């Protein structure tokens, strides 16, 4: 069941990535973007055991990198793979809140989804300005990172509920022991 649910979460992450591309930036939030894929990924970090979380963050990082990496004049600004590292670290941190999640709490996780989404965006920005040699953090950058995090935080309860129903549908129990299940 873990592997099936992991596969479904990877598919959901992909669909969330495709969907978020078509959602225009929010003008009332200084042009902040609606990022859906991190919500699915951070939910997976709570609902899945650690090895499966790492596989999910790897797939999400790879998809995001393949979607956003740019090769201009034979130069790659951010190498393929950086998002995997960032998502793996943030996913591991989120996974630390799993015991609370298994006890049926969700408030702190929604808050952390927002914070971690902002963190991932900010790290991406820092990577780029490091490569372009101008270390500036103007207010517009804070608006874009915190705005995207705020939207992710507000949307996460809906996504958590939907993905929880998906888990029920495939009879996946997040608190079932992982290794024993794999070896039968």
């Amino acid at each position, binding site marked *: 069941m873990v592997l099936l649910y992991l596969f479904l979460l990877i598919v959901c992450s992909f669909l969330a990535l495709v969907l978020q591309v078509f959602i225009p930036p929010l003008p009332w939030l200084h042009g902040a973007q609606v990022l859906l894929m991190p919500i699915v990924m951070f939910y997976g970090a709570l609902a899945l055991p650690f090895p499966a979380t790492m596989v999910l963050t790897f797939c999400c990082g790879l998809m995001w990198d393949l979607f956003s990496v*740019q090769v201009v004049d034979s130069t790659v600004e951010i190498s393929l793979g950086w998002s995997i590292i960032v998502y793996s670290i943030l996913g591991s941190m989120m996974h630390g809140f799993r015991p609370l999640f298994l006890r049926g709490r969700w408030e702190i996780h929604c808050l952390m989804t927002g914070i971690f989404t902002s963190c991932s965006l900010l790290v991406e920005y820092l990577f*780029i300005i490091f490569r372009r040699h101008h270390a500036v953090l*103007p207010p517009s950058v804070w608006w874009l990172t915190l705005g995207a995090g705020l939207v992710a935080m507000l949307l996460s309860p809906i996504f958590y509920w939907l993905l929880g129903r998906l888990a029920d549908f495939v009879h996946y129990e997040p608190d079932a022991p992982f290794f024993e299940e794999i070896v039968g």
Partner: protein
Amino acid sequence: MKPINIVVLTILLVLTVGLLTLGPRRVQAMKGAFLQAVSPFLKTGALVQNQVTTVTTGLKSLDQMERDNQRLLIENKNLKAINLTLRNLEEDNNRLRRALNYRERAVYKLVPARIVTREAGTWLNSFTIDCGKNKGLKPDMPVVTDEGIVGKTTIVSESISEVILITDERLQIAADVEGSREQGVVQGAQLSEVMSPLLALNFLSKEAQLSVGQKVYSSGIGGVFPSGLLIGTVKSTNHRDLDTQALLMPAVDLSEIEDVFVVIGG
């Protein structure tokens, strides 16, 4: 730590390091293949978005469509006539250039394309268009509208391509200022000025006297953009210690466009 965690982490670490060490060509090929694989989803999404927009902006009545059609037919005939005249002038021009031993001006072909998705990320100035190698596109081809330069292609796959916009600071275009001998390099605003739609025209002479509204065109130096394409208009100038910088308003409103042309050939 459990053995299964160590095994999974080791495998993923090796894969990640492998990805981090890939060269630009491999990355370009991988991204091209990925874009091609997801293009059915992206094109379907764009179609749905377009239909939603059409519904929300209101459907036109048949009468209105008929009137629009008539007007466009007349406009089309008009443009065809002008195009024919310009082709003749181009031939004359090339004949005279040959007579003077100048290099012949290349003949360019425009490939129409529709925007599929806009910015892939918060910090990137790019979009994808619905044509690629199947229409003769290659990386580093200019993308324009009837109003001016939009950007250039970067990654081209079979039926979808990525375009970096003129507002991205990595795109540089050699430029001439209308009605003066000033030349410079146009560049998008720095990433830290992420909300700014303005372009910077750098390396003008220290004595440059530009007026607001003066037009700036591509000079053709650099090989990617042919000469004479409108880039933008001067908004303000700033005299610095060694040169003058002008800020330009792009000729094309990048937030509004839906259709573009890729300049191929030449």
